[in-house]
């Protein structure tokens, strides 16, 4: 019988993606409701030394598939490895990060083993009666939410957006089993040729990892006003993000975009400057612990999701806020 929750943990160059730890954290809750265990599946080249950390973040065990063919992500070798693990272990649930790798791998595997897959979930629960996985996700550009079930086929599979779930505190005393799972690869499994890998230069902190986000909307008026927002972010120790309007206008890079078609963030503070609060934007930031909004229109929907709303002009408030924050820091240093 199918049992246990398997989290497919993504790594690139041996660095574990945060979403993997977030999913392990979430899986421990679901597993408690089911009375089952959480296993991480770690696929790559020489990645076994990363396995212990996954146990410390909540996994009961780790299944490791290692091979030089798995150095860079290519669909077929990864699909073969994961399919072998799933066929052997028969999990109840398999979770993936909804990243460009997870969203390439998961559907391929779902078709191969003939089971259901729900994309981009923002909420997972176990139905108390049927014990089925309730997978909730936005649809129609964030206008509605849908809850989806996979009743008959196993495993029940979902991809989950990075930043939505919370990772557990690391506990170095946790113990678990690390198993190496052998897969016999053939040269023909590499059915495409990677000619070149172009890595992007190391970026500023990714906005999904930032504790404080100073976010600019169309209301900041000009592209160079992002410099002022950056100054505020620097004082507060945060990063700058944006609504889609400014990204579309070419004022800031796409990787700074928060929302339905951008990134999901859950910082301690989200400071929304001149952002109206469209439903697609809110979809990406409503998990923030504290939202403070500055907007000159007192009916802007961003105020509906704000802990504190200031009806006023960004251009007047933000410079004063920079000064006040500097003073506060100096006084409390």
């Amino acid at each position, binding site marked *: 019988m199918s049992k246990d929750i398997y989290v497919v943990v993504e790594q690139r160059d041996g660095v574990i993606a945060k979403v993997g730890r977030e999913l392990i954290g979430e899986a421990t809750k679901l597993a408690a409701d089911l009375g089952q265990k959480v296993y991480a599946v770690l696929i790559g080249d020489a990645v076994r030394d990363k396995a212990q950390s996954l146990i410390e973040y909540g996994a009961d065990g780790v299944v490791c598939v290692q091979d030089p063919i798995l150095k860079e992500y290519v669909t077929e070798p990864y699909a073969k490895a994961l399919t072998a693990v799933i066929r052997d272990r028969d999990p109840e649930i398999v979770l993936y990060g909804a990243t460009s790798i997870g969203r390439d791998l998961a559907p391929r595997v779902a078709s191969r083993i003939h089971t259901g897959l729900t994309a981009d979930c923002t909420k997972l629960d176990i139905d108390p009666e049927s014990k089925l996985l309730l997978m909730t996700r936005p649809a129609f550009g964030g206008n*509605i939410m849908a809850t989806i079930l996979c009743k008959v086929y196993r495993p029940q599979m979902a991809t989950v957006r990075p930043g939505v779930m919370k990772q557990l505190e690391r506990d170095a005393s946790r113990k678990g089993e690390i198993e190496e799972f052998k897969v016999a690869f053939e040269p023909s499994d590499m059915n495409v040729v*990677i000619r070149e890998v172009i890595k992007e230069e190391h970026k500023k902190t990714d906005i999904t990892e930032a504790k404080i986000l100073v976010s600019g909307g169309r209301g900041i008026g000009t592209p160079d006003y992002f410099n002022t927002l950056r100054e505020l972010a620097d004082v507060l120790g945060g990063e700058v993000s944006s609504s889609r309007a400014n990204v579309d206008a070419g004022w800031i890079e796409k990787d700074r975009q928060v929302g339905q078609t951008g990134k999901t963030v859950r910082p301690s503070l989200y400071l929304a400057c001149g952002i109206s609060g469209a439903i697609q934007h809110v979809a990406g930031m409503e998990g923030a612990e504290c939202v403070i909004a500055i907007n000159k229109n007192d009916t802007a929907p961003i105020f509906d999701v704000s802990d504190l709303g200031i009806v006023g002009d960004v251009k007047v408030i933000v410079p004063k806020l920079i000064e006040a924050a500097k003073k506060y820091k100096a006084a409390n240093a």
Partner: protein
Amino acid sequence: MKIVVCIKQVPDTNEVKLDPVTNTLIREGVPSIINHDDKSGIEAALRLRDEAGGTVTVLCMGPPQADTALREALAMGCDEAILISGREFGGSDTWATAAIISAALKKIGYDVVITGRQAIDGDTAQVGPQIAETIGVPQVSYVEELRAEGEKLVVRRQFEDRRHIIEVKPPCLLTALSELAAPRYMHVGGIVDAYQKDIRILGFDDLKDDLNPDFIGLKGSPTNVVKSFTKQAKGAGTILADVGADEAVAAIIRKMEEKHII
């Protein structure tokens, strides 16, 4: 080279509004469009054909009204259009949709299959890879650049932190990002021609050799939507209007202090 582009007709989600009373989607009067990523896929296919030779077939699964999406694709310059339509197909999830489209692909033949990365109504990005698996060809998703090099295709594939330049031999499937190719406009002559061409229709009977009726439609789909609802907004906090800037700034600092942010 036979290039087949799979497209979806979608409601323009920019125009989708909620009924404030019933909290349901108002679909009436919402214009239907060709999904953006798919349209970029059509353009890329046309350029590939013009560069490497061959034909472009456009394939759409949907109700009879999807005819307009196919005519638009013909007007852009596609050579042939096929509509997959039938009551048996309604309610299919991504697994079942991929099974149906794959059956059609087997019937018509292909060298290169191009789908959009994802559709704006469902946003799943699953159907492309699921077709690739079902027909048993390599996939390259998130394609942002494409050219032919002899027998091979050379594509640039996007990840969050890197790009791969990949060589792949047909038969294969690519999923197109909107950035791949900015779609051309239809020209008037093209529109006239598009309405004179026949659109071939494939129904269940045409595909039944490659389709298990138990695995398609609402009943045969592994996943089912059990509930849909509109989001509950988180309760609003304090809103300060008509206060001076200094007072507003002081309130922000207090809030940050209270939350241990500063």
